């Protein structure tokens, strides 16, 4: 990141710390829209980070957006900033203008017939809060990006493991607010971008969970000393630190690979993303296990803040494909490389 970039990140981190407090996150889970937080985001333009200037955005580097999303994960941000960034990225790639308000994206490849879009998707994050829902729709003239007004979709409200809105969405012959063909992106690559975003957010969330764990281990006294002085506890925390460091490294590598191609998910970037999402599966299983073990019953209560971060990590490991699905597909790619290309493919990422 350049210096101007770190200004974006510092501003974001400060705003998130001030406005994404425990009370705000809890209230959001109960259904209260954090208006002040979202307003501050819109005023700062953070939600337009990935929108090209031509489409009314900031046109900042992709890495800036990823850095902001890591900070958002670290603050358990209860608004669809990640989803709006993903939507803005998608609209920008299709050359469409970005509308006002929070946005979200429904996964999958939907149908486009006579200018009308039909389809359904499960677990669309923050659908109920979005002004528009973006979809990929296949028509006779190929794949399109279509923006649907929320009011034109049927929503069945649900919640993620983290208590965030995960709504089932159905749209039947809905007339899109905007629609444009897209040539260099398919549903698979959109999923990959989503998976990468989750890996980056989870790296942030698990870093915060680790910090809370270190702090608690230093404060909680049993048998006459802080539990962090017991070697058994120390070693668990060291493992946790390793998981977090590995996830961050894998997520950084994938973000850099996507940024290097200017946002095209080519075969090389796809492998980096598969690596990061696979690593997220591990980190989100092993990390929170330690966090909760160290926090004891206190961390199991709703009153303690730990769950804002562990529950998000658990939700995100399931979204955009589990580690099992990603590992299988990566394994498929590895088999296609064959014995002679296995090692060269592994080193290719640093040799460009």
């Amino acid at each position, binding site marked *: 990141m350049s210096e101007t970039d*770190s200004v974006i*990140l510092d501003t974001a*981190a400060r705003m998130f710390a001030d406005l994404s407090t425990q009370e705000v996150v809890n209230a959001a889970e109960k259904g209260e829209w954090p208006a002040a937080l979202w307003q501050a985001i819109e005023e700062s333009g953070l939600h337009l980070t990935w929108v090209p200037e031509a489409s009314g955005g900031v046109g900042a580097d992709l890495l800036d957006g*990823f*850095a902001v999303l*890591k*900070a958002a994960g*670290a603050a358990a941000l209860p608004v669809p900033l990640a989803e709006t960034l993903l939507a803005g990225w998608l609209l920008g790639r299709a050359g469409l203008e970005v509308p006002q308000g929070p946005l979200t994206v429904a996964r999958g490849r939907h149908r486009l017939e006579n200018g009308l879009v039909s389809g359904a998707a499960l677990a669309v994050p923050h659908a109920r809060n979005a002004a528009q829902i973006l979809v990929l729709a296949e028509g006779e003239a190929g794949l399109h990006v279509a923006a649907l007004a929320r009011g034109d979709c049927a929503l069945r409200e649900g919640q993620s493991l983290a208590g965030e809105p995960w709504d089932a969405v159905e749209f039947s012959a809905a007339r899109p607010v905007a629609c444009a063909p897209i040539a260099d992106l398919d549903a698979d690559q959109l999923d990959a971008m989503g998976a990468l975003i989750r890996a*980056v957010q989870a*790296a*942030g969330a698990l*870093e915060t969970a*680790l910090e809370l764990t*270190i702090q608690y281990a*230093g404060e909680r006294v049993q048998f006459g000393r802080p539990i*962090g*002085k017991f*070697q058994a506890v*120390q*070693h668990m*925390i*060291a493992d946790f*630190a*390793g998981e*977090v*460091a*590995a996830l*961050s*490294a*894998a997520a*950084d*590598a994938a973000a*850099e690979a996507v940024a290097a191609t200017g946002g095209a998910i080519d075969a090389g970037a796809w*492998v*980096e993303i*598969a*690596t990061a999402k*696979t*690593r997220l599966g591990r980190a989100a299983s092993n990390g929170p296990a330690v966090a909760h073990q160290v926090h004891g019953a206190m961390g199991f209560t709703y009153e303690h803040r730990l769950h804002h971060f562990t529950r998000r990590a658990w939700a995100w490991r399931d979204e955009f494909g589990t*580690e*099992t699905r*990603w*590992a*299988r*597909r*990566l*394994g*498929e790619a*590895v*088999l296609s490389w*064959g*014995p002679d290309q*296995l*090692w060269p493919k*592994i*080193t290719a*990422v*640093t*040799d*460009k």
Partner: protein
Amino acid sequence: MSTSRFRFPGVTMPPAARALREEVREFLAEERASGGFEPMADCWAAGFSAEFSRKLGQRGWLGMTWPKQYGGHERSFLERYVVTEEMLAAGAPVMAHWIADRQSGTQMLRHACEEVKAAALPRMARGETFCAIGMSEPNTGSDLASVSTRAERVEGGWQVNGRKIWSTGAHGEGCDYMIALVRTAPADPKERHQGLSQLIIDLKAPGVTVRGIEDIGGQLHFNETLFEDVFVPDSHLLGEAGKGWSLVVGELALERSGPERFLSSFIALREAMEVLSRNPDDRTREVLGHLVAQIKTLRRMSLGIAGLLQEGRSPETEAALVKDIATRFERELIEQLRIVLPDEVLLDSSGVLPRLVREAVLRVPSSTLRGGTNEVLKGMIVRQLGLR
């Protein structure tokens, strides 16, 4: 992404390193095709070939980062990384020079007198002189400050008595030196790190006896080395007498983050690819995906440390963290590979792949021991986290 406790910056290989990689790959392909070596698992700790090491020396691939005046090649840490990772990925017999190239030479460069550097380093860079590690003793493992090998002041130098153990390669042809951590002043229980010194011991000197110790795989790669009234000249003291602890800590840091911590058994995975491609099921795909994802992540972290070293930083805790997760991955690699391999490989005791799998299984317990046990490494990590 600035909040992280541990940072592993991305590394892009400079053009010189990329060109070097092609050169190394070509060399390895030719060597293997012409029978110059048979690939083996854990090749850096079990594949001794003085001849192969000399070939690398001739090509300028040993002592790569050292100054030219000492026979080095003044190349970058990243170029050295390329050579070492290519050797490991091919399972080449690099054990003979590994210790000299990785740590002993660098340690001498940092702390030895001019005379020793001028005499020893060029020969190491040519692959003619090898080194052994002299840290562990029969009663000293993780608690390294408890060493009891003694060096007493005598005229012109030191007289050494004691015993070192697990010194990899000490018996080998051309293994001339051991950098031994010895006690040069009595232990003070309050200041246990004081009074230790590092001495370069000539393993051919009178009073040195090297005895091979067979490992569980039947290999004679490590040793017990006995010192009975061994004379070590003053010139062979590293740094200052009594201040050896900080030196040995620096030496350990050189050991910890290299690609040998996660690529020891990579050759078994590579050689298994053909068998695994025949009728892959979902389980096989999943295992391969997980293993490659891990290798890629660990390589990113390990290279990040090489990048930090190139910037002149000393990321000791990061190195400990990488070694901890990398060496646990080494076990995972062979255990997972085993699960998806067919009987015809596991129950066969001939052929390259069955041999590699067996070597990897039998050698993997040492991964989480050598260079500092994972328990010691975790101690370093939590100290950095403020819990100790």
